[in-house]
């Protein structure tokens, strides 16, 4: 019952640095006692959100409530929250004991109670014999334990953790993950955890909040997020996946990689373009091609410890990543099938690039911060129009010479037989491009569109 009580409520939170919007209308609640993880790539706004909750930063708009009371006007030292910082931030001039006792001494807790509580948390973080040690003589993992102890000794209502394990090596990180999870269960305190490590998020969390570019992409349990990603960003960010273009033929029937499959999704309509996600472990691969849904030829096969990771070229010219316990030699012809329940169908976030533009003259239209040549028959100069450009009709150039405008590749999604790129222009607008050329993230590209591929249409009036 108490589990469903909301301890933190965040409404319409926005924050910008200059022109860059780091948080864009965030709405989120945190249930009492849960382990919630804010997950996303660097620069997605997760740390900013945590710092606003902790009180080190003010949002431009929006509200944060703790147990139903507004929190934003309370300075950080009066908030009943404690933070574990990324690089520990222990006080170098104090020993382990005094670091942990710092908060309690400020609150004028009686000496003998401080002593009792410090010893108790030291035991909890398995650092009992270290109380007189100088913090700088401790290893990274030990310092992190002290940082956690220093925070939880104050019995905060919510513990905020900002990538606390990022500075540790892999083995230590795995051990600390298990300990953190145990600690969370023992203490019953609400944890808000920030990380860019999807595996860490899946291991630790009750709830994962996937963020990208200042927006929440998906909120759900680790299994929800892994099995039912709502969009291609989440599918790509969490775990390995094959993300493919498909068409929803009818309810429970989807077509992709040139074949039709049964699936469990419905309600998309008929003949609607969709994104399909298949996890690499969900494709069953056999030497026998008879009776299988489709066939292919193994291109590479790599041993990964528990399983083999194979890239298979399908009969329809797509590339699939497959994980299986059995190895198949490169060059082998194989048969494959996918269970209906393992096909995750997602609504396409967009089917073409659309912009609102202005006709600036005969054969000229302005959008995306530049002037483009196109056919403007039937439109007048100065008229507002809707511009549509298919993903596959955008040319990317590695030089500026013939380009109309320029941008940087910010996100790359492999879709089995082509790449779906997100390119950000200099004034921050985005254009999505389907291409078979290989580009790298952050590549500087020139953008060109042939006049015949720019489609104009009348602006749809709301009242019509």
């Amino acid at each position, binding site marked *: 019952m108490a589990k469903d009580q909301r301890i933190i409520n965040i409404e319409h939170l926005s924050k910008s640095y200059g022109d860059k919007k780091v948080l864009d209308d965030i709405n989120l609640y945190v249930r009492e006692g849960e382990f919630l993880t804010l997950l996303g790539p660097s620069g997605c706004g997760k740390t900013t959100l945590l710092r606003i909750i902790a009180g*080190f930063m003010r949002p431009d708009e929006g509200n944060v409530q703790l147990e139903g009371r507004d929190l934003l006007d309370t*300075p*950080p*030292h*009066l908030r009943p929250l*404690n933070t574990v910082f990324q*690089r520990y*931030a222990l*006080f170098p*001039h104090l020993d382990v004991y005094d670091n942990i006792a710092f908060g309690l001494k400020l609150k004028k807790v009686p000496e003998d109670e401080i002593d009792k509580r410090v010893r108790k948390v030291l035991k909890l973080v398995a650092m009992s014999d270290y109380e007189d040690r100088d913090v700088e003589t401790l290893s990274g993992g030990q310092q992190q334990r002290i940082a956690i102890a220093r925070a939880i000794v104050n019995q905060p209502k919510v513990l905020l953790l900002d990538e606390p394990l990022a500075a540790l090596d892999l083995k230590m990180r795995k051990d600390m993950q298990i300990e953190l999870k145990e600690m969370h269960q023992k203490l019953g305190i609400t944890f808000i955890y920030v990380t860019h490590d999807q595996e860490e998020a899946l291991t630790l969390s009750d709830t994962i909040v996937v963020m990208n570019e200042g927006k929440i992409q998906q909120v759900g349990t680790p299994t929800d997020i892994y099995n039912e990603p709502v969009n291609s960003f989440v599918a790509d960010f969490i775990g390995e996946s094959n993300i493919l273009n498909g068409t929803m033929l009818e309810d429970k029937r989807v077509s992709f990689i040139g074949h039709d499959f049964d699936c469990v999704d419905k309600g998309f309509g008929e003949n609607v373009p969709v994104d399909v996600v298949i996890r690499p472990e969900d494709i069953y691969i056999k030497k026998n091609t008879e009776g299988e849904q489709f066939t292919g030829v193994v291109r590479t096969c790599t041993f990964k410890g528990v399983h083999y990771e194979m890239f298979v070229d399908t009969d329809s010219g797509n590339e699939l990543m497959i994980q299986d316990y059995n190895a198949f030699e490169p060059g082998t012809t194989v048969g494959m099938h996918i269970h209906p329940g393992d096909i995750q169908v997602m609504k396409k976030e967009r089917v073409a690039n659309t912009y609102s533009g202005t006709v600036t003259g005969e054969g000229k239209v302005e959008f995306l911060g530049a002037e483009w040549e196109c056919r403007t028959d039937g439109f007048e100069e100065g008229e507002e129009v809707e511009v549509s450009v298919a993903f596959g009709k955008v040319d990317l150039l590695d030089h500026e010479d013939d380009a109309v405008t320029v941008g940087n590749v910010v996100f790359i999604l492999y879709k089995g037989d082509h790449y779906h790129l997100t390119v950000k222009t200099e004034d921050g607008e985005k254009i999505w491009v389907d291409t078979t050329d290989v580009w790298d993230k952050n590549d500087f590209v020139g953008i060109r569109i042939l006049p015949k591929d720019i489609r104009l249409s009348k602006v749809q009036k709301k009242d019509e």
Partner: protein
Amino acid sequence: MKASRILSRIYIWVLLIVLYAPIVFIAVFSFTEAKSLGNWTGFSLDLYKNLFTGSMQNSSGLLSAVKNTLLIALIASTVATFLGTLAAVGVSRLKPRNRQVMSFLNNIPMINPDIITGVSLFLLFVFLHILQGYTTVVLAHITFCTPYVVLNVMPKLSQLNPNIYEAALDLGATPMQALRKVLVPALRPGMISGFILSFTMSLDDFAVTFFTRGTIGLDTLSTYIYADARKGGLTPELKPLMTIIFLVILVVLLIINTRKPKTTQQ
């Protein structure tokens, strides 16, 4: 092989003797009462007695010079420590490029010859119509001491975890408490080295003091000795005084050098 080792031993000893002989010479002759230098008339503590009881010629001048020197050094290095620490905090928060420029500007006064610092400050005080005396000497000493404090505090700041101030707030400290209980203690080693360095720089300064003390007859130890020597012959009591000063500086240096390992280790 062996001969070369003996040679190198001899070399280092010759070097050390040349370096320390003058100081040892003064120290040894401070324990005899002969008025003229170089005459040993038997062991005696009379010069020390005279120095501390004040029974010597022009003793009030010497004692007030010592008092001035210490007081000026104390005030200048205290103010410089305060200003230098604040400046270092400010500089550390600049963008990397501006920080580099500021560090460079901070280094110039330290390598600038004292005589230029002295003359330029003298001209500045004249230009501003500030009456030269105690105030101008203290101001001048603060001026050349502050960069040394900045130089000593900067490395401490760059080692400091940027979240440490926020960590203090997070644990319930008010901004003032966070400053007092966390920031200052974390910077303290740098501030102390800066203070000690400033103190010794101020103590042995001659050129800057000489140009900024004005004409009211203010003397520090260095200007007093200079004037005394020009009058013909050093006052014998200077020998024990110099011995004492040397020993004090030696102790201070030992303190600085023994705390160094701790500040560089992190």
